[in-house]
């Protein structure tokens, strides 16, 4: 998998990414997932990443982009199959 923009988060990211990929292919796509089982690993990685984004001032750029993306959320969070 790819690296993190914050090298200090690489280990946590790798742990989470492997967990997610396994969950996605073996459970989620087969319809056997009710929740994201890798959430605890994600939270550890996210705590590390959030700090790095804040330090670099990227968090605000992301917040703005998130607002710009609201229309896409409205459109694509609806099931396409009807």
């Amino acid at each position, binding site marked *: 998998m790819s690296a993190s923009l914050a090298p200090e988060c690489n280990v946590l990211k790798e742990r989470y*990414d492997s967990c997610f990929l396994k969950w996605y292919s073996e459970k989620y796509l087969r319809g056997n997932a009710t929740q994201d089982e890798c959430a605890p690993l994600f939270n550890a990685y996210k705590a590390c990443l959030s700090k790095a984004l804040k330090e670099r001032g990227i968090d605000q750029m992301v917040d703005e982009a998130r607002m710009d993306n609201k229309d896409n959320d409205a459109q694509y*969070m609806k099931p396409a199959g009807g």
Partner: protein
Amino acid sequence: MKFFSSRQEFEYSWEEVSTNNWRKYCDWNNQSSHVIAVDTLTRTLDPSTHILRTERLITCKQNAPQWLRTFMGAQDTSLVYEVSYVDPHAKKVTMCSQNLTWSELLSVQETVVYTPAAGEAGRGRTVFEQRAKIIALCGGWQKIKNTIEEFTVERFRQNAVKGREGFERVLAISREVFAEQREQRRLEQVHGGAAVAA
């Protein structure tokens, strides 16, 4: 304002494509050295629709030519914000991206959709559809805006070829690795079974 679109087909199932899409920029991809990092910002699973929403931040090496950098400002890296939606029942992945870097001067909005190819002939194949809207926001001459927009469209055209080549490689290696793992498990079972029988 300029538009870019492309359509490609991959000879892999939607399940394989959608899984490997998460590691599109890993080391197996020898065409994506410009992608330095891919970070997941948020990930949520909607319990009623099962739609998986993921926000990612993609960090790229700045590869704009000097004339454009002089005009827009010099930065070593450029950032892209991407939100993807996986609908497992409809078998559809939609990815919406926008640039964070130079966003006050140039707006690039891209949508990529992966769906299974239609009909009997499309079995085990996946369609990739990409469209992008490019708008130069900087004030000044229309001529400059046009030049910047045209340059960005040309980059999309070049990257579409490289992107396909790199992703094909990721898909091929992934299939190989998966087959090896399955064979390994099979051998372990045979040997394990033999040990029990002995």
